[in-house]
């Protein structure tokens, strides 16, 4: 009896102290953690304060939004490992699907919880060439010519590289009309890759700083950013005749949000991405907004390009994963033939 009393007293006291520590660090505010991929850092840095202001205007309590960035698979791995993310914002669906598979952290129907299959913005895969396009690279066909060097991040570790691979595959599938033709085309393309960086930013560095390669195949937003940051006097963006629609998926990490009591604010946060204000910030960071009005306003920045989705040409991400990126699957065969 007295033993358990003592124990509960200790527990009470430590809980008391602990609550002080927590209060001290957060001023009793609710916090929201957005775990995201590598190059969305600048975007969410601007989204967060805008959301906090909008949330307070709606009568919400004070809130702090924290963000964590890194390679997307590594980030998803951290969430599986116990990083308490309330929302997860990625650049490819498999990195959210894995949270459904492992531990049911995200609801299986996450695609249905927000508009456009829970993808508030898209981008596409384009070419960045050296100023004046000295090798006159116009379309995917030019990338498989002998003697051309193509910079692509590793499709096994990078969403960016994966989209490039899929875009090339889709193009070749249309052109040759067969899987074998597509495989041959993509094999030639990857035979022209002299460096495989782990992520999109690494590939950018290799192409722009190390001066390696004739063409960098990367996301449109990254290409626009490079052209802006490094001056458009050094590089030109080339739009191929067909490319992939790379939609960036978002989801509430239900299990964590339920535990932390942040479900409502997490939903509001992701909803905010779809509001005109949120879409405007998205456009500012060179992603293609879903809102037609906002897209139209920035139309000059986004030339028309014919795109396809993973679902349209390759039967969805699960099929792509199995047929292309699993151990010993098509991608492994393609690099092994070199």
């Amino acid at each position, binding site marked *: 009896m007295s033993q358990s009393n003592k124990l509960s007293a200790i527990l009470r006291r430590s809980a008391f102290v602990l609550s002080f520590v927590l209060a001290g660090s957060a001023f009793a505010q609710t916090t929201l953690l957005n775990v995201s991929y590598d190059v969305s850092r600048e975007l969410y840095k601007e989204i967060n304060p805008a959301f906090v202001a909008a949330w307070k205007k709606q009568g919400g309590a004070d809130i702090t939004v924290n963000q964590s960035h890194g390679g997307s698979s590594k980030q998803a791995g951290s969430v599986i490992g116990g990083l308490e993310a309330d929302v997860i914002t990625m650049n490819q669906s498999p990195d959210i699907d*894995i949270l459904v598979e492992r531990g049911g952290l995200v609801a299986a129907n996450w695609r249905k919880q927000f508009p456009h299959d829970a993808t508030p913005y898209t981008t596409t895969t384009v070419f960045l060439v050296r100023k004046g396009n000295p090798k006159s690279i116009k379309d995917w066909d030019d990338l498989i010519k002998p003697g051309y060097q193509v910079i692509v991040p590793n499709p096994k570790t990078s969403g960016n590289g994966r989209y490039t691979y899929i875009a090339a595959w889709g193009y070749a599938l249309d052109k040759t009309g067969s899987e074998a033709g597509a495989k041959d085309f993509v094999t030639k393309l990857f035979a022209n890759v002299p460096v495989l960086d782990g992520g999109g930013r690494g590939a950018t560095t290799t192409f722009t700083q190390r001066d390696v390669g004739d063409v960098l195949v990367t996301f449109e937003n990254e290409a626009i950013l490079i052209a802006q940051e490094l001056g458009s006097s050094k590089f030109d963006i080339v739009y191929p005749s067909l490319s992939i629609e790379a939609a960036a998926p978002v989801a509430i990490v239900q299990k964590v949000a339920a535990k932390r009591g942040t479900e409502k604010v997490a939903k509001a946060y992701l909803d905010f991405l779809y509001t005109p204000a949120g879409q405007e910030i998205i456009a500012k960071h060179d992603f293609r907004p879903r809102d037609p009005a906002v897209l139209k306003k920035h139309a000059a920045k986004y030339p028309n390009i014919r795109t396809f989705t993973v679902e349209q040409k390759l039967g969805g991400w699960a099929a792509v994963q199995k047929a292309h990126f699993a151990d010993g699957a098509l991608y492994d065969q393609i690099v092994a033939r070199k």
Partner: protein
Amino acid sequence: MTATRTFRVLPGFNLTLGYTLGYLSLLILIPLSAVFLKTFEMDWARFVEVVTAPQVVATYKLSFGASLLAAAINAVFGLMLAWALVRYSFPGKKIVDALVDLPFALPTAVAGIALTALYAKNGWLGQYLEEIGIKVAFTPLGVLVALVFIGLPFVVRTVQPILEDLDTELEEAAASLGAQRWQTFRHVIFPILLPALLTGFALAFARAVGEYGSVIFIAGNLPFVSEITPLMIITKLEQYDYQGATAIASVMLIFSFILLLIINGLQAWTAKRTGRDR
């Protein structure tokens, strides 16, 4: 049965032994056994399939080959550097001495980026090397360069104290007995240095095998050409294949352990032969 009690200088041997072993298990054995335990989640056939995949085997060759070569290069040049630092005095010696430790302190990613910037075809060194047809950045040679860079301090710092303790009288004696310079080095100095040199070699090798950060920037990471084993492990992890990653990791651990065991055995043997036999 005779109860023999050996005399010890410090009391509490059992306590300290227990503490040491406990500490060692906590710090090294438990994390490492976790690697093996995770690997045991897969069956034997799958394990063999993963660790003998051609792409993975190619990385073993590069990782262990380049690491051994880098450690060997460091053994030669590290010895020369240690020699110069101990035996000669020159202006700026203290600074050079401090520089040796920098690869220890520098974040490996910084080293990788610096080396890549230097050796890329538009870099300070790369532009001249490219002209004579030598490509360093984004080739296996780049891997070697990075591994030599990070391994250097190990050899210098293990050999240096032995050299400092070495009596020059030994050399004088050898000279007065008619030994040539080379003979003095070969028969007097080198045998004394060899155990320390082997330790330095082993440390540099072990460090190189596990190195990831600096290599990744300069390697180019092409399958079958310039992929190192740690990259293979990271790639598996990024594809959520934790078992595959630990399988390769355990193969790597076993390889490294065997190689280190051999080097340590060699070192003990030379120490015995040169030091305690007399």
